[in-house]
């Protein structure tokens, strides 16, 4: 085993017992980045000197006895989350040289625990995509097969954790952007309840859908990090003041009496046969652990994707208006103000981003608003209600995270609709606001990982961690990409 295969829990224990220094740990990860990132391209920027300085400080703390569970732990941050003084491009040319002037709330909260940031990770431009192929700075590769996509939009963060370039990473999930790349890269990926984590400092894509999530190697690691970033924030009025429980203490080894729902709408046709097999085997593991499996129904889930592709672009079309070449970012000259806007945005924004801005402007324009946006909001309530009703019968639900295996580069990027369909199992949760986690649940014959999505009611992330941890322990899947 290499040092960079270490879990957060194990690393934290070793640092505390001085079996290893933070500097050694961080240096090992920086070395790993040097070795593998040329081929993986998980990072857009790496802060070697800052990371080493930070590691030395961490070692000081460990000596002083003022360390925390995250002290000295190397981590990576999706490039749409702001870290003061670091570049924040969101995978877009329009922000190619933008330096963040402040820390996102999640970063501030993490910094309280003195982990070490290695760098910022690649992503689909402004988090729009399912493969990182929409990054203005080139795609990230799937560490399990460099010819295949790592998923997206947080593909860089998922790949970084999978490839041993960071112990944990932050991502953002608007329609599946944490869970799907986690599934594709064989790591754990959490999308919290909407309102559980502050969005302050996360570049907005779909404001009513976005949440910052966590990538890690194990469910327990995920619970440790999440406990640190969850909670209300006065700078984000949509973050709710629900108490944050001690997630790690609530982890379980068995699932006796736990009612697990299988939403029948998620197990229909159109799923990769091998993927289906892995998921069915996973559900057997739940049964072995004492869980009671029940079929449930989310009758409106067939509308989730349509609702999502109306609400999200409408919000996108307004959220991205600030990238106008006036105050920061790319600014191209023109003879008139209109030309400045036109030149800057034509050059600075990618085609998928432009497509969504146009769809959103259309769906919210006079005469179309009622038919699209207003309708979508109404159906959104029904979808949310589906989940609330289902959770009256079961404690958690399980589904595949993605119906497919990671595809080859270019396979779907020509057809946006094909790409949009990738979100089919994940968007419902964002539309309803409920939390979900993707846990590695097996591998396909070609060695590609498959993820199981566990869903919990609003603000019941502890159920995701408890069941995910028990499942993970029982499955004891040991996978690692060959790089």
């Amino acid at each position: 085993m290499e040092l960079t295969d270490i879990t957060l829990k194990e690393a934290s224990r070793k640092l505390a017992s001085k079996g290893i220094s933070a500097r050694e740990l961080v240096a090992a990860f920086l070395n790993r980045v040097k070795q593998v990132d040329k081929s993986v391209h998980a990072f857009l920027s790496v802060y070697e000197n800052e990371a080493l300085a930070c590691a030395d400080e961490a070692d000081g703390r460990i000596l002083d006895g003022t360390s925390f569970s995250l002290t000295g732990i190397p981590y990576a941050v999706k490039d749409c989350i702001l870290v003061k003084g670091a570049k924040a491009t969101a995978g877009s040319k329009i922000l190619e040289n933008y330096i963040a002037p402040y820390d996102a709330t999640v970063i501030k909260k993490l910094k309280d625990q003195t982990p070490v940031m290695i760098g910022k990770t690649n992503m689909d431009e402004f988090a729009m995509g399912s493969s990182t192929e929409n990054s203005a700075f080139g795609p990230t590769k799937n560490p399990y097969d460099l010819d295949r996509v790592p998923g997206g939009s947080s593909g860089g963060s998922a790949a970084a954790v999978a490839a041993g370039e960071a112990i944990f990473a932050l991502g953002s999930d608007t329609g599946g952007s944490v869970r799907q790349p986690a599934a594709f890269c064989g790591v754990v990926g959490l999308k919290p309840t909407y309102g559980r984590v502050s969005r302050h400092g996360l570049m907005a894509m779909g404001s009513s859908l976005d949440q910052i999530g966590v990538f890690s190697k194990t469910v327990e690691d995920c619970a440790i990090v999440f406990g640190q970033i969850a909670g209300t924030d006065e700078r984000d009025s949509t973050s709710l003041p629900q108490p944050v429980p001690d997630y790690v203490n609530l982890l379980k080894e068995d699932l006796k009496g736990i009612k697990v729902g299988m939403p029948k709408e998620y197990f229909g046709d159109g799923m990769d046969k091998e993927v289906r097999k892995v998921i069915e085997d996973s559900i057997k593991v739940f049964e072995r652990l004492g869980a009671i499996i029940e079929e449930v129904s989310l009758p409106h889930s067939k509308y989730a994707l349509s609702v999502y592709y109306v609400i999200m672009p409408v919000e996108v079309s307004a959220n991205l208006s600030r990238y106008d070449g006036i105050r920061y970012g790319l600014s191209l000259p023109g003879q008139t103000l209109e030309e400045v806007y036109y030149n800057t945005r034509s050059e600075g924004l990618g085609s998928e981003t432009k497509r969504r801005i146009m769809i959103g402007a259309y769906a919210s324009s006079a005469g179309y608003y009622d038919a699209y946006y207003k309708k979508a909001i109404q159906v959104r309530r029904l979808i949310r209600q589906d989940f609330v009703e289902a959770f009256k019968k079961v404690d958690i639900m399980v589904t595949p995270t993605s119906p497919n295996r990671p595809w080859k580069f270019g396979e779907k990027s020509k057809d946006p609709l094909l790409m949009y369909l990738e979100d089919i199992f994940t968007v419902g949760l964002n539309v309803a606001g409920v939390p979900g986690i993707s846990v590695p649940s097996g591998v396909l014959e070609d060695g590609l990982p498959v993820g199981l999505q566990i869903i919990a009611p609003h603000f019941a992330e502890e159920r995701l961690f408890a069941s995910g941890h028990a499942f993970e322990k029982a499955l004891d899947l040991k996978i690692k990409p060959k790089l």
Partner: protein
Amino acid sequence: MKYEPIIGLEVHVQLKTKSKMFCSSKNAESDIPNVNICEVCTAQPGTLPVINREAVRKSIMVGLALDCQIAEFAKFDRKNYFYPDLPKGYQISQFDYPINGKGTLTITVNNNERAIGITRAHLEEDAGKLVHPEGKNYSLVDYNRTGVPLLEIVSEPDIRGSEEARVYLQELQNIMRYLGVSDADMEKGHLRCDANISMRKQGETKLPPYKVEVKNMNSFKAVAAAIEFEIKRQAEILDEGKTPPQETRGWVDDNGATVSMRSKEESMDYRYFPEPDLPVLHFEKTWIDEIRRELPELPNARKERFIKEYNLPEKDARTLVSYKALSDYFEAVVSEFDEWLAAEHIKFDAEDHAKHLKLASNWVLGQFSSLLNQKSINPGDSKVTPENFAELIKLIATGKVSQLAAKDVFAKMFETGEDPSNLLESMGLAQVSDEGLILDAVKKVILENPKGVEDAKANPKALGFLVGQVMKELKGKGNPQIINELLKKELLS
């Protein structure tokens, strides 16, 4: 053809709060650009708005003062358009659920009471300012004003002329000042006004099939003038049997005319949709009641009180309260006056006391106001303290100085801020009320003017001549009342 103007006003009022509407930057003007800004109001990536509770409270105060229906819940929406002074590319405003719903503002125009309907009053954020340096091929943006809370008060098309519009605006301004929610200074842009103007044939009741929106009016005078201009312009078009085109026009002060800015076809689609970054606001009745209880006295209530408490004529009371700072000043003078009386153990019966308060009001509305106007300063900025003002009234009331002489004294007070009793001495204007001295003069005048005495005895109206002579004897400083009394007494004996 006779037409009736149909006018509705959209008034934007900058609310006076410590911080801006959605961030903690200072809500303050500055000569230095871009100092009161932060990552939120310059729309750095990842920033989110947070509602300013004080701005919401002040909006509700205005709503209550305008008898508006306060919403049970309200929400914010995004109004989308691109402009460099709008960093987010959308303005956070309120579309279909404003804080304040329908209300009324009653104004008095030419002694007629008119109830002007309020459609709504909603909260939004201000934009920044563009600066166009002379002779340069670029423009600059100042974001100090960006995100300042703005209350938009929309009236029903109930206004029927430029004078009504002016009075309505002035009354709104006055209410903002009574509430203390805004300085509402039009020249400084704290209060901005757009007008929707159309015309219909006299006697018709339906709204005209068009309206013209007029912008860029930066003073009360400009509003009145722009309305007058539009009334004339639109009447000419209507006279030709045509309908004026629906459009947005701008007032150009220098030309005294409105010019077309954009036609209906060019009107913007703002693509309003609910602001996902902010929660829906629910207003608890108890909170609204608390704000209602803490509402300061409004102009109408103050007018009624002035009539009741100080026995002022309705017209005086109305004039005083229509300028809050002046009515505040008047009240200070009244209270200082009573203190003078108490301190010097002077007692007046109720009737006399009321007469002296009326005198004080005359002085405040008369000479004081005209001097303030001449200097273009506010009552609070004058050198005359209410205490000194009250002392002068007391000196008049007790016959220590004649009204005529008091005018000179007051002018000097206004200039230097000195107290009136000292000025009376140094200017030698103290009134002679000493009956002995006056009697000597009366006797002398009677002796020297047998003809005048004869006339006065024949016709009491001719007494004036003798009074004048006595006054001359006393170098104009004699107390006219005592001169009168003593003359009559002497002539009878």
